[in-house]
Each structure stands twice: as structure tokens, then as C-alpha cells.
């Protein structure tokens, strides 16, 4: 899916290690003492050290989404998956009663994560976040068509990211959810060639290989092709549109 065309030059072959969470800290010292940190992560896990002034090497540390999940190889996500159906709308991802939480406030970001997918109907007997927990044990969400339809609330990809999910693999996406995922760098919105929501089951152990556009279901032993993320990849990988725009010279580096 072409999202941002390369209207500015993208550094060639940026190497990046996989990250469940993508964030950035500006290398230049900022006058800002703001507590706002819209891509903030659990402080115990925050070790972001990307230098946007570096030419082509991007060093990034990643934060494991939860103790139950590990990310091993570069450019891949590994963990257990949570499977949902078609047209999972933003009210199911984060119900409106929780929208009073402001994602740019670190403590409220965390709280948003604890409500991720809480709006799914009771028919989902296995919940994305177990009662009493604040993080999910599922690092990959697998959905059907039109994932993220409905509201423009950025709280939706933020809630998924803050819960510990690293990627969504769906048959297709609603436009604003896809864009918000890219703009924030919170989750990788990957598209599958086939209806993986009927092939995989909640709890299956899966690996997503980003560079090979491949999803491996270790539980069933099957492999599936994913669609290349295209121009959106470098934006998510940079940590969102601000970081990407600065990196590529679209807006001045501070």
C-alpha cells in the first residue's frame, strides 16, 4: 500500500533492528521541558537512542511489549497472536468512554493501553488483556477486512501500541487507522494476501518477517505472504511523521 510517496530522499538502506515500539528522541537538545511525550513508553523500558542526524545508520533499541513476548531477529516480530474478525471498528478497539485519556500524557498513554480492544463483544471469551492486567500477552493482532474503521481517534493505534502489541496483520485497513498507525509509529499495519483471521487462532505462535513480507505460524507450521508495506515502512521505522519529515529534510531539524 503506497502511503507516502518518497517526495524526499529516504536514506538508502537504513539498517534497523526490530522494534515492538518505535520512538525517537531528538539528538539536538530541545528547549522543551514538556511532559508531553506522545510516543512514550514504560520508563523502565525506554532506551531510545536514535540519532536522526546520522546519515544512514539508525540505531534503535526496542522495548519488549510484555515479558511474555520476545523479539529476536532483526526486522521481525515474534510472539503469540490474537485473532479478530472483519470491520473491527475504533469503538471496539478503544470505546469512547475512555477517550478522555490524552495519549500525549505518559500516564494516560499507559492507561489507554490497558483498555485496548476492551470493546470487543462478549463472544470474544478470551480477552486481549486479561482481567487485572494492564498489558497484553499478544504481540500481534490478526484481523480481517477493514480493520480500524470508524472514528479518526488516534487513541486506537495508540491503545494497541501502548498495550504492548507491535503489529496488526489484517486483510485491509480503514484509511484513517492506517494513517494514524503510520503517523504515530505505534504499530505496524501490515496487510496479508489471504484471510489470516480464518487461518490462525488466538494463542498461535507466530513470527512476522518484515523484510521477507512473511508470516509464519509455528503452531500450524504454515507460512503466509504479506503485502509489502511500501512507502509507509520508512515512516513507521523512523518513528512517525515528525521524525520522518525531519530525517528526510521535509521540515527543519531542531
Amino acid at each position, binding site marked *: 500500500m*503506497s*502511503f*507516502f*510517496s518518497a*517526495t524526499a530522499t529516504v536514506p538508502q538502506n537504513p539498517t534497523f533492528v526490530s522494534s515492538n515500539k518505535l520512538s525517537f528522541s531528538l539528538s539536538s537538545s*530541545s*528547549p*522543551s*521541558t*514538556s511532559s*508531553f*511525550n*506522545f510516543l512514550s513508553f514504560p520508563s523502565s523500558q525506554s532506551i531510545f537512542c536514535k540519532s536522526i542526524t546520522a546519515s544512514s545508520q539508525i540505531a534503535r533499541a526496542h522495548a519488549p511489549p510484555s515479558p511474555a513476548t520476545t523479539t529476536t531477529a532483526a526486522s521481525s516480530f515474534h510472539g503469540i497472536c490474537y485473532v479478530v474478525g472483519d*470491520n473491527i*471498528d475504533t*469503538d*471496539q478497539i478503544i*470505546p*469512547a*468512554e475512555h*477517550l*478522555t*485519556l*490524552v*495519549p*500525549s*500524557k505518559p500516564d494516560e498513554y499507559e492507561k489507554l493501553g490497558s483498555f485496548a480492544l476492551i*470493546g*470487543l*463483544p*462478549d463472544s470474544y471469551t478470551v480477552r486481549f488483556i486479561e482481567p487485572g492486567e494492564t498489558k497484553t500477552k499478544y504481540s500481534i493482532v490478526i484481523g480481517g*477486512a*477493514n480493520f480500524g*474503521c*470508524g*472514528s*479518526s*481517534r*488516534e*487513541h486506537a493505534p495508540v491503545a494497541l501500541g501502548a498495550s504492548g502489541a507491535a503489529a496488526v496483520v489484517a486483510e*485491509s*485497513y*480503514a*484509511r*484513517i487507522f492506517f*494513517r*494514524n498507525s503510520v*503517523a*504515530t509509529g505505534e504499530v505496524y499495519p501490515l496487510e496479508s494476501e489471504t484471510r489470516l483471521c480464518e487461518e490462525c487462532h488466538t494463542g498461535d505462535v507466530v513470527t512476522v518477517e518484515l523484510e521477507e513480507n512473511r508470516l509464519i505460524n509455528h503452531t500450524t507450521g504454515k507460512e503466509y505472504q504479506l503485502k509489502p508495506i511500501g512507502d509507509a515502512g520508512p515512516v513507521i521505522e523512523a518513528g*512517525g*511523521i*515528525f521524525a520522518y*519529515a525531519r530525517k528526510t529534510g*521535509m*521540515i527543519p531539524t*531542531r
Partner: protein
Amino acid sequence: MASSLVPPPTTSFFHTKKDLSLSASSQRCQKHASRRVSCSIAAPQQTQRQPSTTGSVKTAMTMTEKILARAAEKEKATPGDNIWVNVDVLMTHDVCGPGSIGIFKKEFGEDAKVWDREKLVIIPDHYIFTSDERANRNVDILRDFCQEQNIKYFYDIKDLSNFKVNPDYKGVCHVALAQEGHCRPGEVLLGTDSHTCTAGAFGQFATGIGNTDAGFVLGAGKLLLKVPPTLRFVLDGEMPSYLLAKDLILQIIGEISVAGATYKSMEFVGSTVESLTMEERMTLCNMVVEAGGKNGVIPPDNVTYKYLEDKTSVPYEPVYSDQQASFLSEYRFDVTKLEPLVAKPHSPDNRALARECKDVKINRVYIGSCTGGKTEDFMAAAKVFLASGKKVKVPTFLVPATQKVWMDVYSLPVPGSGGKTCSQIFEEAGCDTPASPSCGACLGGPKDTYARMNEPQVCVSTTNRNFPGRMGHREGEIYLASPYTAAASALTGYVTDPREFLQ
């Protein structure tokens, strides 16, 4: 009702269908250009008119492409292009404003100034009449920011006990934007709300964005947007007296599905559209996002200009699709053949005839929101109550979208009622007293939100979404319908075709 106010236009701005297959630009996707989909009985032939006001047609473009090209200071914009677009108006509200401001401050600095204090419109509307402290704090954040930045258009509310003592307070942002003159033909409006597309009714490019994009616009005044291809919907025929624009958009969404227009622009033309009032046109464009659409757009005409006359002094320049512009698909509807519709739970494209659902017992009716809470929506509901002379059989909740709508409900005489207002008719019918204007229970909201669905009930609603949990309870069932159908259903306690009362 809607059609009677507008003189029929003498001409139509587009040519016959045959011309649509001709693409002037070799860079266009020719293979898509001639695709047409007929959804109903063939419509009458369109009358032709000169391609006036479209300027040079060396590069044929749709309305949406033209607006984006101009805003990007480019000669042309082709679907798929990613271009930096200058923003004429950025709107945000209490749910997404604080987060957008947070990102703006983080990225541009604590002392940064917004790109233009007169182009930002901030409208608290979602969670207003609640004791939820965080919701109240979010409005405080907006107020502090507007004071700090000297924002010209901030529709504040301080006294929650009585909205009427807050002269600046409006209510639902999309309706307030129109009523306050912020929707102007040919401009670009971005908003942190998916129903920002409502403003396409004015021939404006209007779409919803997230907090991060809004934070970017706050500082830069522009945004990288992908130019969408356009689907064209030709609606012809005189609007039957029992239909409203809500029925038309439910018909279209049912036809193309909730993802049928994903990444695309939806352009509405035809004699029916030309006959619609501005509020009805807003209903049509409001729900394009329910089909996945990026924006909806209606060619401005005398109805548009008349509406804007006393609302804005800002000069604007409308644009129109060229005769030879490329459309991805064209859908044609003969409106005279349509019947009142509902969208059944739990998806806006789960279309059914209202009369097919007559055995569905309901617990409540809700009339409100940016989709179905405008003055004409309440007038339509009142018309049904008046025609029946009966009382409602289920609790019927009324939430005017804005303070202006609320005043209209209490002051405008309903035609044929002998001078009664909507509020009087609603009271006689046994409805709940019209509530304070806001987004209300359309999206559930905090637990103490008026008319929120706290039990797993069945509701007929004039709102826009019937996803699980949308109005509060995860197991609640929502039937989306026009104000006519909603009022008729209130009178029987079942989903009801309004023709039972209007004929």
C-alpha cells in the same frame, strides 16, 4: 420538505455518461475511467450546460483534485500523488484537541505559536455535560491553549449547569462549523474527527485526521495528503415525501459496503442532490466515512451561496469537476424508486427496508448528532408526530446538535401545525425534553452521559454508527434510520416505515 425550498436548477454541470469515459490526461488510469455501475432503474437524461467556471480544462480534474491542486499550489493533482496541501481551516475538539496540542508542543516547542490564529477552530462538543473530571479537564486544556495562543474561534463553555448562559458555546462541531461560516467552497478543512467530511456538502475538501497529523498542521499549516480517486454518485428524480438524505446515504453505503470507498472521494451529483437543502446535503456527506471514504463532495450552487450569505465574509472560490475528469466508477440511482431504510446492527452497511424490520421490537429512540440532530431533522420528526397525533410508546431522546438548533426547536413553527414549535409537538407526543446540545450518546461517552445506552437495549437512532458498544453498551443493538423512520418507530415501539404515518 427538503426539496420544496429550492428552485430546480436549469442546468447540470456535467455531461452525459458517454463523456465520462473520455479521459483527457494520458496519465490517468484509463482502464478505470469507463467503469460504471448501475444500481437502480436508469435515470432520466441529464441536461447539458457549458463548462463555465471550471477554467482551463487542459488537464481535466475532479472537484477534489482541483481543490487539492490549488491548495498545493500546483497545476494539477492526480490520484495517488502525495502532495503538501495548505490548510484553510483546522478544527479540533475536546476529545482530540488536548492530544494534538500535546504533540504540537512536544514537536514545535513549548513556546511555539500556531501557524495562523484565525485558521484554527476549537469546538468543545463531545463530553461536556458530565461530572467526569478528566473530560472537564480536557475542556480546560483547550481554554488555556486558546488564551495562550489568542485563538480567534473558540466556542467555549464554562457553566455546565445551563448551556444557555454560555453565549459562545455551540455544540456539535460539524454542525457548528457550517452555522458559523467555516465551511466554504473550494477550501481545505481538516479536523480531528472522522465526520469532518460533513463539510464536503459545501464543495470543500474536508477530511478527518489524527492527533499527530493535527499537531503537525498546528505548527506547519500544511499536511502531506494523498490525492484520492473519485467515485461519482448520480442521484436523480424527485425526492419522495417519505425519504430523507439519510435514506440516500444508507442506500449508497449498503450498495458499496463499509469499505467501498476506502481512500476514495465520493462526489454526489444529480437532480436529487441539487434539490436538497444544505442540511440534507450535510447528512449525505456526513456518512461517507462510513463507506470508508476520504471525503465527500457536492458541487456548490445557489443553495450553497444563499446559505453562506449571512455567515461568512471570507471570499471563496468554488471549483467544479471538469466534464472530462476521470472517475473511478459511477453509480446511478433513481431516487423515486427508493424506500425508507435502516442499517441493522452492527454495521452501517447492513441495509434493510424499514418495513422489512417491522417485527423488531425496540426499547428507545434517539434523535441527535452531527448526522441527525440538525434543525431539519427535528422538523422532520415533528412532522411525523404531528401527522399521527399519537404518543410515543418508547422513551424518545432528543439532543439538538447545537445551541442554534436548540433555539430553532423551541421557536420555529412546524409547517401545518397552526404555529406549534417542535418542542411543543415533542411534548405532546410524550418525548423527553430536548437536552443540552452536544454529541450526547451518539458515541456513548462517560457513564453519566444523557441517553447513554447503559443496558443491552434496542435503539432506533438518527446517528451514524451502529458498531458494537457505540452508544454505550457492548451488547446493545442500534438501528440507524432517518428522523422520519425514527419518529415513526417511536410511535409504535417497533422499527416502522414512516409511510404508516405520512401517507
